[in-house]
């Protein structure tokens, strides 16, 4: 299988390797840097490619299964490719009371995708997210690292235009 050869072929970007090694020094055991390492790799590719898992495991001295177990537990680690921008709509109680469902409908309509999907042009991935701690400004959403709230359905198009 070609996948097997791919799994041995991942080389860290020098900056990423350095960043991971920097993080390892914060902890008593290298394993603790597994989430940091996954985030560093994800920042590089937008997601965590399969072949990077054994490379991370090697660097931390743990098994690939352990790294994969961590990668699949946390919802902000993406094990599938995502769009250039990730939209996270808060669907917890504060935003429920202030109308996140209406906001989600508008965004799904404008992008033609459902939760968990990516637009065909690879621009956006849409995800629900747990309370963003912005409950006094609901409904709230994040696009990449930007937090918006309260979001009026009328401003959705303008906000989305900022991300190309």
């Amino acid at each position, binding site marked *: 299988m070609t996948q097997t050869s791919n799994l041995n072929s991942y080389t860290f970007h020098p900056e990423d390797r350095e960043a991971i090694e920097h993080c390892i020094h*914060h*902890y008593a*055991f290298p394993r603790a*840097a597994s989430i940091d390492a996954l985030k560093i790799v994800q920042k590089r590719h937008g997601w965590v490619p399969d072949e990077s898992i054994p490379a991370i495991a090697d660097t931390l001295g743990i098994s690939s299964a352990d790294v994969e177990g961590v990668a699949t537990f946390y919802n902000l680690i993406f094990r599938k490719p995502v769009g250039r921008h990730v939209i996270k709509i808060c669907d*917890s109680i504060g935003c429920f009371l202030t109308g996140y469902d209406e906001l989600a409908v508008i965004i799904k309509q404008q992008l033609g995708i459902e939760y968990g999907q990516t637009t065909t042009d690879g621009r956006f991935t849409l995800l629900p997210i747990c*309370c963003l701690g912005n409950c*006094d400004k609901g409904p709230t959403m994040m696009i990449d690292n930007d937090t918006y709230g309260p979001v009026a359905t009328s401003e959705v198009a303008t906000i989305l235009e900022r991300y190309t």
Partner: protein
Amino acid sequence: MSTFTKTAETHPLTWRIERLNGELLTLPSYESLGGFAGLRKIFANGLSPRDVQTQVKTSGLRGRGGAGFPTGVKWSFVPMGDNAPKQKYLICNADEMEPGTFKDRMLMEFMPHLLLEGMIISSYALQASVAYIFLRGEFVTAAERLEQAIAEAKAAGYLGANILNSGFDIDIFLHTGAGRYICGEETALINCLEGRRANPRTKPPYPQVSGLWGKPSVVNNVETLANIPGIMLHGTDWYKALHTNNSKDAGTKLYGISGRTKRTGLWELPIGVTGREILEEHAGGMQTGLNLTCWLPGGASTDFLLPEHLDLPMDYDTITKAGSRMGTGLMMVIDNQHSIVSVVRNLMQFSARESCGWCTPCRDGLPWLTKILTDLEQGKGKPGDMELLEQATKFISAGKTFCAHGPGATAPLQSALKFFRAEFERGIANVST
């Protein structure tokens, strides 16, 4: 004449924000506003770690993360003295994800140095030489400001080896998470910090004895730690007197409100103010045309209370006696335009998704409850659903699950069934009212 309404003595957590008038808190501005005076006082007066622990215990400070456990008592389980393990850890729980809660985010974005000072003092009290801030990954602004504050504090000698020539060493590291509500549970948080799946651990041993990497560790909430500098600077009598007269708890509390009120927001108030004061005076009441049906005192894992409970002091013991928990103290008000069944379904859906999957009642029970509640919401409920819901609130309760997530998830449900049973029954197909 000063136009300031807040002082260090009345609003120890937030008074500086008013002085800064929108400017960011840097180390020089924090120092000019009494910053690090609490820490310096400890070393100037030669207070021992035990002295600091005693002062925090006497102050009556209770954990602001939601459980309300007395901070000094939590600390007292940490082994101290010559025979204690050399390596100990302090962990700041900054994984703020409790639905309806947005207080720690504000403190970290606007008062990062206050948190650092609280952490340095607490680390000294526990003789922990390494401390971590466990911050949720989505708090990007807080992460930037904390990193900057740590760098500033390090350059000025508040962090590192032999701080302020005291002989005490302390390093603080920022760890940002990658999601999952369960990371707020302290033993799950420790697993996450060790780079594992965030499943909770068996207790005992408690983290104070065997926590991070098997070493004595204390996990404290952001707001709890932010209270410590004031306690050291102004003393325990001052701290105890900050409450309202009808409350036995000590200090101020960051209270807040969300839902459809005229204003939403966060206010530092004497602990023990009433829910009515928060709702009517600070939030300006419900939005025009809306009535209050019920409210959650402090997060998605607290039981609903009714409008008649608004006159109770918002403190740990009183709200517990009323059948709920103060939790994080940030109220969520439910208005009459929302069906209570839909509200409970939303809360259950959240809890089901955020279950870590470790124990069966929570992993399998919460999605099942979500399905039943969705059916009831759509009028497709079946005979027997009410009994199932009630049975589940008993099966997924304290002592029957591995951690507090499951019981927290069923708290709103069991209280809603108690107060609004007919609304749920109406969702059973062919039952008309």
